[in-house]
């Protein structure tokens, strides 16, 4: 058992961190103000670095790396809340293609994704909050998916319909894009007898989709961990510099104790989120174990994200409410992540199904 990064993973972390160095709040606000809501040139640099092909097989144009490397990248992106759709395009949409696509589809889509030329989006949620909305009619799809993250910029949709997965050209749909509260983009996507190619053999994809969602959930958890880490750092810096009543705020125990509680939340989250990646990477873990690890990590992230995000704003006072200051944006992103792919309440529901089937939760295999 080892929670630490190895040499190559540390080098990857440092490289990504270096690339994101100038990604301060001012730059981020400029980026998210314009479509597509992320920095295309940075996306290209991530591709050059190999980050966009990280989890894919080398034969498909990827790097053949594992969940640990994906988590390292997600955490660094989360630290600066970079709006580039790494989890959405690479881990989620790309992950589905990698799991179920034909050899030809994998080569084309994953190759394009890895080189930065093709950005796929996963059309999953429907406007009622479920995962339906679109039905299959022969080799076409009809209905509505919304919100579809990054649909306005996507070159390809991977669509979940009637328990199966399809590839659809966005040009064959009607896309109405808008901004989301965390600075991202989502869209209403309308399908009207839109031509659809089955992903792979086109059979039931429910279980495989759940597996990819588990992996993406864990990547989101690392993104959230990075954001929480930044929120606490900003808060402690603020407490040691901001003066009121003639002294810095860290002289007030009512405030420092709350920061201590944020640290406790953060460290507990770091432990469980890192563990979830370890479960995902362990060759002896079965699908059920991986999904459970994702649910456990996400439940903790849901709680800690709210706690740390809310307290970070409160301990900053009025300045924390301003768009000019990053701490509120961190909290907005944490709120978005909380509700993507199943929030805390959903995870409790998922976990409750097996509650009586074990005695204690054993973290070790």
């Amino acid at each position, binding site marked *: 058992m*080892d929670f630490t990064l*190895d040499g190559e993973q540390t080098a990857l972390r440092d490289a990504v961190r270096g690339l994101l160095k100038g990604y301060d709040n001012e730059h981020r606000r400029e980026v998210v103000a314009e479509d597509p809501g992320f920095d295309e040139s940075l996306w290209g640099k991530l591709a050059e670095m190999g980050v966009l092909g990280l989890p894919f097989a080398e034969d498909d144009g990827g790097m053949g790396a594992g969940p640990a490397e994906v988590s390292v990248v997600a955490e660094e992106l989360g630290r600066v809340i970079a709006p580039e759709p790494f989890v959405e395009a690479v881990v989620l949409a790309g992950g589905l293609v990698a799991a179920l696509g034909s050899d030809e589809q994998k080569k084309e889509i994953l190759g394009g994704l890895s080189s930065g030329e093709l950005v796929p989006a996963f059309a999953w949620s429907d406007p009622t909050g479920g995962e339906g909305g679109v039905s299959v009619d022969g080799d076409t799809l009809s209905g509505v998916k919304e919100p579809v993250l990054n649909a306005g910029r996507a070159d390809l949709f991977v669509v979940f319909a009637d328990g199966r997965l399809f590839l659809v050209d966005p040009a064959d749909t009607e896309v109405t894009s808008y901004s989301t509260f965390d600075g991202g983009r989502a869209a209403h996507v309308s399908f009207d007898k839109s031509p659809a190619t089955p992903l792979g053999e086109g059979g039931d994809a429910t279980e495989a989709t759940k597996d990819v969602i588990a992996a993406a959930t864990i990547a989101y958890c690392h993104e959230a961990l990075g954001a929480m880490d930044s929120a606490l750092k900003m808060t402690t810096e603020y407490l040691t510099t901001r003066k009121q009543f003639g002294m810095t705020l860290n002289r007030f125990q009512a405030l*420092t104790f709350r920061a201590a509680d944020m640290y*406790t939340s953060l460290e507990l989250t770091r432990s469980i989120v*890192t563990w979830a990646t370890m479960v995902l990477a362990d060759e002896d873990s079965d699908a059920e174990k991986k999904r459970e690890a994702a649910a456990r990590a996400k439940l903790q992230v849901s709680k800690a994200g709210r706690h740390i995000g809310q307290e970070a704003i409160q301990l900053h006072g009025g300045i924390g409410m301003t768009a000019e200051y990053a701490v509120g944006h961190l909290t907005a992103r944490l709120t978005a992540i909380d509700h993507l792919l199943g929030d805390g309440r959903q995870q409790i529901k998922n976990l409750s199904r097996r*509650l009586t089937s074990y005695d204690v939760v054993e973290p070790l295999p």
Partner: protein
Amino acid sequence: MQLALTEEETAFREEMRTFFTTKIPQELRDAIAAGRHIGKEGIVESQRIMNEAGIAVPNWPVEWGGQDWTPLQKHIWHEEMQLACVPPPLAFNANMIGPVIAHFGNEEQKKKFLPPTANLDIWWAQGFSEPDAGSDLASLKTKAVKDGDDWIVNGQKTWTTLGQHADWIFCLCRTDPDAPKKQAGISMLVFPMDTEGVELRPIELIDGGFEVNEVFFQDVRVPPEGLIGEENQGWTQAKFLLGNERVGVAPVGATKRALATLKATAAESGDLEDPLVASQFIELENALLALELTALRVVANSSDGKPHPASSVLKLKGTELQQAVSELAVDLAGPLALASGAGEGSDIPDWARVATPNYLNLRKASIYGGSNEIQRQIIAGTILGL
């Protein structure tokens, strides 16, 4: 990053699991599982069985009965012990004065005290807190004054846990009232509880139990060999001791076991079918998982023997969760919990009878071992630089 244990670690876990579930008497473990007190004899019996096997004091130096285990092995030892409902080695001996004597004591003191301390032939009491020195321990007033080579001790200690069983006490005393800092004038003295001038008075707690005591010292004569380490070095020893205490004080395995037992009870009664109840179990299980994983991270980074600063997180969150599980038991027992004084002839199950005394008793957990407010102070100051 690597989840799996090595083959050696897996074998070690199996060895510990087998030992604790087969060598420690079942009736002792059943009593712990049911939340009953096992008394002095039970604690002594359990520790002696472990000591005979060489696993009562693994954290001590190897030459004094410790084990050359990795931090992970020590963690596994501790977890398996708790999961099997084995009473742990007496903290005052194994985690407190034993390591202090091994680290600061002279050769004669080590020879005299360490073997019987490991075997619980000597039962130690902790003489730290005083009526006016709780969290602010360094303001303690019990004084030791030189009389020839001897020390004469006068003053009062309090919250002396299980002092009624104690043979010896280790005691922080003020030996230099004029020291420039109050921390600099303190020494660690040890002496038998039956020394003339030592008087112990029990304190009844809110659960009706007698766990702690006041100890009064009137002209207690302590020979020079009763001084551990250097004169006026007591604060260094106290900090060393409290650092060890904080790591051992997070009862992850025991709380997991308590929650699992409660879950089985709730499943049997049908309470668990209520989604609100089920969600409380899930949230507590998850918080305990995060805590256990944090403990694993902390042990992995404590290889130099010094406690990781994040050990305050373990104490803080560990005791909160221990209390939360006891609170859930009270909620599930509901009005049945009122049968706390029932004996034979009552139809109310044991777990419900002990639920509230246990809940009330465990309010202590966030107060002792450096109150949780002190832990927040440590996190804010030492870790966050606030």
